[in-house]
């Protein structure tokens, strides 16, 4: 069972990691917990279904082809990226000079708005998500890894590696790191801080969109409220790994998924959330900045 639980946990954790990255990047750059980020993930899932329905009912592509899936992903990514950038422009940028509380409340407002908008537009019921992966998988003595699980883990790894390459190997990545370190200095050396912030939101939202589409396929069911729960878990993961730290979000996400799976499997399914949060509390007591976070108390 251990191997099966590890597979379950890593799959779950990969999804948490993708969403957590959005939280951590935005926090790193403008010190805002974007509470509406979970809703971007939810929108990604819905865009997946909408584009799938569009394609298949017009018989443009077959329901099980890879092309359909690719188009779903691209549509979701573009839509959510646009949402993320718009959200920043409309709800956060005007409040950039204000106290820390204002953009936070604004974020909550955006979150409530998006949840209710989708509820009114798409209906309050669950929507079934199309099955693009048939029950294929690999059986082995310890358990079974299904095709979709392999796919989720692979996609997450590719996204995360891609992100690291972007942040450490490109000019815009360097600009992002500089802005995260010191916004004022970055603008003084000629970095377009507004653009960097928009790009950060774009990337974070794109990752959340990918997570949304994959989760839709994995569980086969979505509703307007999934962003809330996923958002809380992913935020926890980001804090666990060190908020503002990109490898930290990845580590936090995977760890949280594993803790939940192993806790539910071995100790008690009823208290599974208790373990996840208990471990978070313990980690923060001994490492207040999270597992990979830097101790910022010495900043002058």
């Amino acid at each position: 069972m251990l191997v099966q639980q590890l597979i379950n946990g890593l799959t779950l954790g990969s999804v948490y990691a993708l969403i957590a990255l959005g939280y951590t990047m935005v926090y790193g750059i403008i010190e805002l917990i974007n509470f509406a980020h979970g809703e971007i993930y939810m929108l990604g899932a819905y865009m997946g279904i909408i584009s799938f329905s569009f394609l298949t009912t017009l018989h443009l592509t077959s329901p099980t082809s890879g092309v359909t899936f690719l188009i779903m992903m691209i549509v979701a990514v573009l839509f959510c990226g646009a949402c993320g950038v718009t959200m920043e422009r409309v709800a956060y940028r005007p409040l950039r000079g204000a106290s820390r509380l204002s953009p936070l409340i604004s974020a909550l407002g955006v979150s409530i708005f998006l949840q209710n908008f989708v509820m009114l537009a798409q209906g309050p019921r669950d929507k079934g998500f199309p099955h693009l992966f048939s029950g294929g998988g690999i059986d082995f003595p310890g358990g079974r890894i299904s095709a979709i699980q392999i796919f989720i883990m692979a996609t997450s790894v590719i996204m995360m590696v891609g992100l690291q390459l972007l942040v450490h190997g490109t000019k815009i990545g360097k600009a992002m790191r500089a802005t995260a370190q010191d916004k004022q200095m970055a603008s003084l050396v000629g970095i377009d801080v507004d653009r960097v912030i928009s790009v950060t939101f774009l990337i974070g939202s794109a990752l959340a969109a990918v997570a949304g589409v994959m989760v839709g396929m994995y569980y086969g069911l979505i509703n307007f409220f999934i962003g809330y729960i996923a958002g809380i878990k992913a935020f926890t993961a980001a804090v666990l790994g060190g908020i503002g730290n990109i490898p930290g979000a990845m580590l936090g996400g995977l760890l949280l998924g594993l803790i939940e799976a192993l806790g539910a499997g071995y100790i008690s399914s009823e208290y599974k959330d208790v373990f996840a949060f208990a471990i978070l509390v313990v980690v923060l007591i001994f490492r207040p900045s999270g597992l990979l976070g830097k101790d910022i108390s010495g900043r002058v």
Partner: protein
Amino acid sequence: MISGWRIWCVMAGAIVVLALGQAHAASAIKIGVAGPFTGDQGAIGEQGKNGAIIAVEEWNAKGGVLGKKIEVVWGDDQHDPKQAVAVANKFLNEGVAGVIGHYNSSCSIPASTIYHDGKVVQISWGSTNPQLTDRGLWNVFRTIGRDDQQGSVAAAFIAKKLKKTKVVVLHDKTTAGQGQADEVVKALDKDKIKPVYYGAITQGEKDYRPVLTAVKQKNPEALYYGGYYPEAILLTKQMRELGMKAVFVSSDGVWQQEYIDIAGKAAEGAFITFTPDQTKIKEAQGVIKKHKEKFGSDVGAYTVYSYVAANMLLDAIAATKSTDGPKLANHIRKTKWKTALGPIQFDKKGDVLVSPFVVWEVRDGKFVEVR
């Protein structure tokens, strides 16, 4: 800063609106209808809503009750006990003559205390947990049966018909879900069967694979789930994805077409307990037909229960010529009702005297009663 006189205008306007609202209310009789109208159990909430709508329209077409039009105050509790309490208080503030609701036992029970203190009659159209009526509150009734009966039907089916001895029992920590799971455990015990695993899942979550993986280790032959259809869909799908062959058995909260539609092939062969086929009851044909004409779809699991409850309340108001809670409750309890579900009579706790539960099977994408 808004200037002084503008604030006065807004306040004056608000006062006028409030006054007008009150004036309108005095000329109608209000009843409260509560249920999970929005949220993931919305499909069930809609059934309660439609049943009440048909009943109220029928009465209003005949001139309302006590010479006044009947106005429905809707209470959406989203299957959240805290919302249910807010809804209950709202109903009392609006001065409703009675409440048709709620659906979830976790909502009906806390609300019932508020209705009791407010001396308002409550008829639930779907709460099955025994505690609702066991507390002996004079104002509480229900048109559906109880989980001690439902649980023993399920347990007897598993033990005697399916002859499964390795049983896993799961629930969703809600009043009804956990209650059903515990009743099944109690009933299985009479057949000397002890569950190989007893656990809980959380509502609203999506991934039950960790729990199911742990459960799979015990090689169960049957899995009983106490809870509602949103989680049942996920459990069933994930069970099959993990390669589990155990039979899935559950209760009335899962007897929904959504369960079959969304779980798809994975739902085949599942057994769900519910009340006998309503389409075979001749008294129900009228409301079934009306529902088809008005809403274009078949009645759901609870539509007729809500319809019957609303009719009982309105009938009681007409018969006692009052909206006094204790008088209405007395009338409801003493009357030998002839309803769309057949003859109904209440015992002194507020339960119907006869309420059978039978087992249905998911076969070829439909619910089929098991003989």
